[in-house]
């Protein structure tokens, strides 16, 4: 194993990884979906007859052919949706009479292989009469066209905090306002969505690249009308997820249903163009903010109003913008904070968690407003933040928006970021350039964030077990499901360390509902924090159980029996000693299973960016990016660093490159695929310095907070602030992400800030 840094590496580097598409099941059929070419319309007809005649096609169905096909489930988990939001709004797995987003599936074709299934799909004829497509909340919010007859397009409303008193706005020395668009993003794991459903006897085995196998089992069993034990969900290697692979999607419903109906294995391997059309999106908010401060720069009140585009059906993410509202306070002591949410149905694919999931939106709005405030008060932006940070001794800190922050040292993170960046040096360089007409303008942007990890109340626990075999191997099981985070390495090491045994002895089994009966999964940056704590807890209980057994064997009081490094021995005499594997042989199987609950944790950090802007070309060059993140106690620094770096690059993607655009029919303008939706490549990666501070979390035994989403949360606002700082335009709202050359070029021509009077 010494050749490989992670256990996963051996197979992934030698071509022996096993992703869903790699699993060969004899007789497996491939599913291909026929999709709507318009974003909104009335379905008149779907004719599958010609498709059925295509050689190699096993069947083709529209909703009309499959009366028993169940609808797509909704989730109440983490309040992502609510009963009220979905009432009267069915999400059919195949369109019944109304198309509500481009690419919505009209029919499914099963073929002996994908080529044949695609041949068949090409023969399906459909007629959809277009209706006006609304792809932005502003277009849908007035209900002039309704997605569901008789129901408002506003599917959910919520608030956090109390309205800011009018006197605050009236009496404040400075009030700034802003309007920010959080564009729709595509999570874009390199492996698209996958499902393989194999019926065996009266059971169904489902293979899927998924973050929550037990949820998928529960949802599939429910829609088949089966007991949960008849469904087994297995998650093999998964090619990234970033929050987007945790639901039961319409295609999953169809595949599971048809596999059972036909009694044959069926798979759906989503392709990229399909994914770009119909995989869930992230972000999608129109925000209005107001921020008030006194003359010394002390924040007095903050108001955030969100109109969120949650997509065509409220089932997956109508409540997701509440994540933004609950974190609206950010890292500051602002006494009055009020955030309101309207979740608006639009003719787009559903908005769902994508790395950051609500927290980038909160951070970007507040941190952009902070820079505007600093300019208004003629204060250094770092100084304004410093004056308002919640001080380290004030934790736990209850925010006006209903969160209780566990621990933090925000000023330490900012100081480290400024020092690493060389803040003063860059300010001097900026001043120099402002006097040099030949120099390109340069800006410095900061962004300080606080986020939430672990999950929401009711979802902060996890299940797992540790077992010792007669051969001495130790097997740990848990309900998590990795998609690149290195669980097999990190958690095996954690269990080995807790037991004091060699790492090689410990094996981790996860992502299989037959192996681990209950579980929640991997989401909300919870694995280290929640699953790590669980495994440590279970391993400790295993030690206690072994000691008790040995004590009984030797007829000693338990406290005279000790465990060290896998050996159980009498503490005093030293004469009685037994290796735990021997103990198993003598006393029978040794396995401890439990559930363990952690508290919510609030990671935080400060990011700083230096950007150079070319006003003639509209290009932005990032000269330096510094990220300082604090995720409490780190289990594996190398892996956490990798997460921080990778997420910073995704954050750069949001700030500068990525974003959905739609044509008049509500169809994403992505005809050239990944040439139209620009993911950062290596050419776009600037020098990034990743640093951390460590403020342990008191709410989990390991002191670990969630890691991995920091860059998506912290980096974008720092970039936009840097560009605004470089251009010094009077109306920074002109800078809406992504900051494409077009956006920047136009902004560069807008009126400048009035210079110091």
């Amino acid at each position, binding site marked *: 194993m010494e*050749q490989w*840094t992670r256990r996963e590496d051996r197979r992934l*580097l030698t071509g022996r990884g096993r992703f869903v598409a790699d699993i060969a099941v004899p007789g497996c059929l491939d599913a291909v979906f026929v999709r709507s070419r318009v974003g909104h319309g009335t379905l008149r007809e779907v004719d599958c007859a010609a498709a059925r005649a295509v050689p190699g096609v096993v069947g083709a169905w529209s909703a009309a052919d499959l009366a028993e096909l169940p609808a797509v489930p909704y989730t109440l988990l983490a309040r992502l949706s609510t009963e009220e939001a979905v009432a009267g709004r069915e999400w059919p797995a195949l369109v019944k009479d109304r198309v509500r987003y481009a690419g919505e599936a009209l029919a499914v074709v099963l073929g002996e292989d994908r080529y044949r299934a695609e041949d068949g799909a090409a023969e399906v004829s459909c007629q959809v009469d277009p209706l006006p497509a609304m792809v932005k909340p502003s277009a849908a919010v007035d209900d002039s066209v309704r997605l569901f007859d008789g129901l408002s397009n506003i599917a959910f409303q919520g608030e956090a905090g109390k309205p800011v008193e009018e006197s605050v706005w009236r009496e404040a020395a400075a009030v700034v306002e802003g309007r920010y668009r959080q564009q729709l993003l595509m999570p*874009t794991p*390199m492996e698209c969505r996958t499902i393989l459903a194999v019926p065996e006897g009266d059971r169904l085995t489902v293979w899927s690249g998924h973050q929550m196998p037990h949820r998928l089992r529960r949802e599939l069993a429910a829609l088949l009308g089966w007991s949960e034990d008849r469904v087994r969900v297995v998650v093999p290697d998964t*090619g990234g997820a970033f929050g987007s692979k945790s639901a039961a999607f319409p295609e999953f419903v169809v595949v599971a249903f048809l596999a059972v109906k036909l009694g044959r294995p069926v798979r759906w391997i989503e392709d*990229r163009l399909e994914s770009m059309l119909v995989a869930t999106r992230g972000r999608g908010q129109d925000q209005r903010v107001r921020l008030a401060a006194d003359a010394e720069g002390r924040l007095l009140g903050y108001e955030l109003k969100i109109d969120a585009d949650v997509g065509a059906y409220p089932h997956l993410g109508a409540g997701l913008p509440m994540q933004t509202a609950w974190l609206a306070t950010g890292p500051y002591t602002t006494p009055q904070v009020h955030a309101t949410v309207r979740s608006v149905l639009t003719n787009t694919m559903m908005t769902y968690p994508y790395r950051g999931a609500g927290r980038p939106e909160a951070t970007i709005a507040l941190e952009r407003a902070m820079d505007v405030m600093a300019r208004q008060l003629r204060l250094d932006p770092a100084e304004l933040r410093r004056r308002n940070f919640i001080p380290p001794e004030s934790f736990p800190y209850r925010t006006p928006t209903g969160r209780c922050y566990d621990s933090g040292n925000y000023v330490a993170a900012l100081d480290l970021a400024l020092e690493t960046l060389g803040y003063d040096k860059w300010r001097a360089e900026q001043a120099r350039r402002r006097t040099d007409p030949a120099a390109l303008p340069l800006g410095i942007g900061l962004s300080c964030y606080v986020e939430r990890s672990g999950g929401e109340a009711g979802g902060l626990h996890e299940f797992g077990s540790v077992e010792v075999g007669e051969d001495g191997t130790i097997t740990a099981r848990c309900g998590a499901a990795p998609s690149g985070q290195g669980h097999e390495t990190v958690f095996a090491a954690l269990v080995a360390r807790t037991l004091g045994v060699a790492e090689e002895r410990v094996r981790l089994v996860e992502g299989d509902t037959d192996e681990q009966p209950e579980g929640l999964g991997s989401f909300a940056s919870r694995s280290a924090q929640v699953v790590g704590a669980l495994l440590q807890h279970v391993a400790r209980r295993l030690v206690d159980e072994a000691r008790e057994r040995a004590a009984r064997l030797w007829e000693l009081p338990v406290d005279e029996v000790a465990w060290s490094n896998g050996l159980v021995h009498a503490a005093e005499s030293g004469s009685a000693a037994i290796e735990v594997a021997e103990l198993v042989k003598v006393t029978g199987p040794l396995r401890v299973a439990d559930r363990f609950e952690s508290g919510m944790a609030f990671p935080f950090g400060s990011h700083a960016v230096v950007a150079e802007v070319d006003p003639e070309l509209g290009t932005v060059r990032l000269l330096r990016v510094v990220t300082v993140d604090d995720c409490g106690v780190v289990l594996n620094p190398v892996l956490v660093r990798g997460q921080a*770096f990778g997420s910073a690059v995704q954050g750069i993607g949001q700030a500068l490159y990525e974003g959905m655009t739609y044509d008049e029919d509500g169809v994403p303008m992505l005809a050239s695929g990944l040439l139209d939706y620009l993911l950062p490549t290596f*050419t776009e990666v600037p020098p990034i310095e990743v640093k951390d501070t460590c403020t342990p979390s008191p709410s989990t035994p390991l002191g670990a907070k969630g890691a991995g989403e920091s860059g998506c949360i912290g980096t974008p606002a720092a970039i936009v602030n840097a560009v605004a700082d470089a251009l010094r335009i009077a109306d920074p709202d002109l800078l809406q992400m992504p900051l494409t050359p077009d956006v920047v070029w136009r902004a560069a021509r807008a009126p400048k800030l009035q210079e110091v009077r």
Partner: protein
Amino acid sequence: MKITLTVNGAAYPLDVEPRRILADVLREDCGLTGTHLGCEHGICGACTVLVDGEAVRACLMFAVQCDGSSVRTVEGLAAPDGEPHPLQRAFSAEHALQCGFCTPGFLMVAAGALEADPNIGDDPERVDGLVGSNICRCTGYEPIRRAILRAAREQQGDRDGVNR
């Protein structure tokens, strides 16, 4: 259509439809699933394999175009005795993979370049170009760049008899 592909040194006599892309034939007809499909339109590079030593996007090539050619995939990267390729070791050492889905493509791009020009380690800009040719959504690329440089320099060191 009857063709013969030589993949990682082994001959595969196949009967394939002309429209089948090389990646599908490698994955399904030859059972070599290490080659991944990330976009199927030539952008991401996850499907990269070597055809007669040249890196190609296996999603943009028909298998029949490779009749009689020699194809090398990630499964053929390690030595016959199983000893990992320097790139494989370097990727692990530099943490140049997280989910590993893009990894075979980056490995093959780098392997092709390294074989064509063993001195690539002296030319960081060329290495940058290699890294820039594929997409990875997890790592942020920097570790991949370091891994390729590390492997290249290690090979150079071995060749020059330098103990590193």
